[in-house]
């Protein structure tokens, strides 16, 4: 090793390093460019198939027509979207409160966990489409029924992930808390909840998508129209009227909503964990 002389030539990039830099560049652009390219190709293909085969728009509309419908029906679709989003977010909120609350209860008392955990699993594995009609028989309020359905689908990942997280606090740290005479509440607040945060956030991301699915499924089952109808009902209604372009437009809105929810929760997760958790760390090599 020697001290760098200013007259020394700049450090050479060897073949490995150049290849690594090139890979990095390719990855940086490819991450956005490639999916965009696939989208363009698919849209063009879709359009050509419709045009060349002269498929009527009540069987398969071309992408142009779908886009047109999206704009033309925007007012109605957006209103429906807001209803669906509202149910989804409320269900997610209730899933978080219920899931975390139950998880805390479970970790505080082994007896409670043993008594109720099997039923949480049963609720989770029973298909929501099978339960939903019953719910709408017994629950008068339509909004409460929708919420209940969406919640049933969404709360389990929060519950199971948070329970796992609360139980996976470092054992030495637990000992340390005991040695310092920490109360149950202190151990929960300062040790178990922070340990559970990454697990909880993982569950939350899954729950976000599931609550949207739960809301849509519940709307299908609930069916009733009225003024406050969500996107799922709009899809059903458009189907009855053979308004296929509107079905596609509504479908696109639902998909985009799901992606936005996922991206938002991923961002939240990143912001909360970026300072300390392994999952948020970037590695150079």
């Amino acid at each position, binding site marked *: 090793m020697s001290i760098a002389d200013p007259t020394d030539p700049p450090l050479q990039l060897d073949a490995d390093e150049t290849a690594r830099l090139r890979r990095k560049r390719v990855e940086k652009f490819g991450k956005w460019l490639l999916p965009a390219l696939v989208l363009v190709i698919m849209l063009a293909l879709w359009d050509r198939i419709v045009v060349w085969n002269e498929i009527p728009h009540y069987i398969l509309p071309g992408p142009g027509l779908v886009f047109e419908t999206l704009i033309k029906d925007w007012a109605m679709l957006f209103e429906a979207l807001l209803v669906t989003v509202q149910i989804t977010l409320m269900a997610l909120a209730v899933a978080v409160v219920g899931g975390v609350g139950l998880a805390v209860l479970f970790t505080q008392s082994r007896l409670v966990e043993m008594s109720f955990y099997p039923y949480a699993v049963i609720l989770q594995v029973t298909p929501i489409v099978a339960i939903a009609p019953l719910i709408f028989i017994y629950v008068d309020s339509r909004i409460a029924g929708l919420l209940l359905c969406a919640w049933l689908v969404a709360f389990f990942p929060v519950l199971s992930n948070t329970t796992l997280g609360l139980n996976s606090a*470092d054992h*030495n*740290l637990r*000992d*340390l*808390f*005991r*040695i*310092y*005479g*920490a109360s149950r509440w*202190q151990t929960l607040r*300062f*040790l178990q909840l*922070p340990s559970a*945060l990454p697990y909880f956030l993982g569950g939350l991301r899954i729950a976000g998508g599931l609550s949207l699915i739960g809301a849509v499924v519940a709307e299908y089952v609930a069916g009733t129209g009225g003024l406050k109808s969500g996107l799922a009902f709009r899809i059903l209604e458009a189907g009855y009227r053979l308004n296929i372009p509107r079905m596609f437009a509504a479908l696109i809105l639902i998909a985009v909503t799901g992606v936005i929810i996922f991206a938002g929760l991923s961002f939240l997760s990143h912001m909360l964990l970026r*300072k*300390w*958790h*392994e999952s948020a*760390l970037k590695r150079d090599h």
Partner: protein
Amino acid sequence: MEQVDKTFNGTVTALKGMSLQVREGDFISLLGPSGCGKSTALRLISDLLHPTSGRITWAGEHDSGDLGVVFQEPTLMPWATVAQNVWLPFRLRGQSYTAVRDDVLQALKLVGLEKFQNSYPRELSGGMKMRVSIARAMVTRPRLILMDEPFAALDEITRFKLNNDLLRLKAAIGCTVIFVTHSVFESVFLSDRIVVMAARPGRVITELAVDAPYPRDADFRTSPEYAAFTRRATDALHDAMGEAA
């Protein structure tokens, strides 16, 4: 705290008839092979386990602030900054950060990490994390610090440095230390008493006094008396192993 005295039998007899008198200011090493009950002894003293029989007593009153613990791993909370980690013993006693900030910063200063108070553990090296762990154990100015092979996972150079620092810190806060190790060299350099233990069942074989004066520095490591003590400790350990086998 002069009379920690305990004898007990566990179900698999992790420790059999162990008696130990710890005097104020002692630096005691528990030296022995794996499975000799060194860590069990520490867990008993820290009240994480209770003796099957026998007693552990402290001279005078003591509370949670009288005991500091350092584990083999740094055992820091990854979501908390260095300063928040060191604050923990106070926090669990309901003391706000502002009330004890001076103590926290003082402890960090003693281990030479005051500049890193707002860093997160993952930004520190293994040796630095261990220093934070030591600062946390010392921050309440405990009467007794228990250390369970704290430097076993560190490289030799870092280990030497932390050994030197540990003696300096002990002198600075004037506590008693019980130090579990399986390194003969470490135990001779650090302690004034070495308790040699054997495995299956875990028990005390003998006790050696290392009556070289403190402060000890790098010169002590190369002195003939250090070599002599090391020799004696190695022989004692060898006997302990031989008996077990």
